Every structure is written in C-alpha cells, then in structure tokens.
C-alpha cells in the first residue's frame, strides 16, 4: 500500500529541504509519494532537478501562500 508522506522543510534554505527529502526517501517504500513543503523558492526549483537526475519520479509542484509543495514518487 503506497502512501503520501509530508516532508516539512518550511523555514529552511537550500539544500536543507532536499536533505530532508533524501532522509525521508530512505525510510520510504518504492511507490510512496513524498510531498516536500518549502518556503525556499530555490529548493522548489532544485528538488525537481535532483529527482530527475537520480531517477525518481517528479510528480508536481504547486505554490500556495508562499509555500511550495513538491511531490516526488520513489522508484528505487
């Protein structure tokens, strides 16, 4: 059963939210979705690039009231 986990990186700066995502990925199952919350626009741009670079699935990015929601699916 896949699930979506929230990775709360609000208030941190690059590469803090990315590092928090990587820790969360290590504790997740293949197929799980992780939703990173970030107030750092640089991380919102950089996390999808990292995801494509290492081969996970990038699902979406949305922004709401200054918080970016970056959704990633673990593939390996």
């Amino acid at each position, binding site marked *: 059963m896949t699930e979506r986990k929230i990775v709360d990186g609000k208030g*941190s700066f690059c*590469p*803090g939210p990315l*590092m928090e995502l990587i820790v969360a990925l290590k504790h997740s199952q293949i197929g799980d979705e992780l939703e990173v919350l970030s107030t750092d626009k640089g991380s919102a741009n*950089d996390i999808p690039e*990292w995801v494509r670079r*290492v081969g996970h699935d990038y699902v979406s990015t949305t922004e709401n009231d200054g918080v970016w929601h970056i959704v990633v699916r673990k593939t390996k």
Partner: protein
Amino acid sequence: MVGQKICVVVISGTLERLQAAAMVASVAAVSGQEVLVFLSMNALPHFVKGATAEAPHEGPMGDLIIAKKVPEFKMLFEQAIELGGARLYPCSMAMDVLEVGSEQLEDYLEEATGLTRLLTEVQDGQVWTF
C-alpha cells in the same frame, strides 16, 4: 553528469566559503557523484573536536546565514558523508602546523592526506576550490 568524481578543496575559514563548499559537497554526494573534500589551511581548525560551526564572515551574506535558518556547514558535510558517501580528508601539512593529531579531529574525517595522494585521487575528476 552523474557519477563524475569531484574534489572540493577548502582552504578558507570564512563562513561563506565553508557554507558554499558544504553545499556543493552535500548535493553532489547525494546526486551519486563520488566526492572528496580536502580540508586545509584556515578551514581545518573548524574540524578540530569541539569547534562549532561559528566562523568569521566576509560580508552581509554571512550575517544573513547566521540570522536565518540556513543549514550549518558542519551538518551539511556530515550529511554528505552519511547520505552520499563523501570522504573528508584533513591536510597533513595543516595538521602538522596546527600540532593536532587525528584523534583531535572530528571522528568523521578520514586519515591525514598529503598533496601527492590528493593529486592522484583527483586526476580523473573536477576540482572545486573554496
């Protein structure tokens, strides 16, 4: 290109350069690149046991890094090791000048390394200097 080796040479002891070096090392390491970090000159004293992540800064960005919730450079280097397998080497010359032994340096550092080995290790990779 994922997989290419990089060597991050850190000789500055200022916050901005230590921060930038730690960012490059950590993101490269967690992106699948082999990362070596060589700590020398004014960078090395920050890795003596008990040293904090406080460092003199060069300009206004240093003030902002301290004031805001930016990940500390020492924590980023540790994450580079734990999450990406980076290796941090203390410069043997800097250790001699500082008069510190391996046991006085942070436990996550590798063995003392000289320039000959460093040059051999990096001949097939990129070198980033801070």
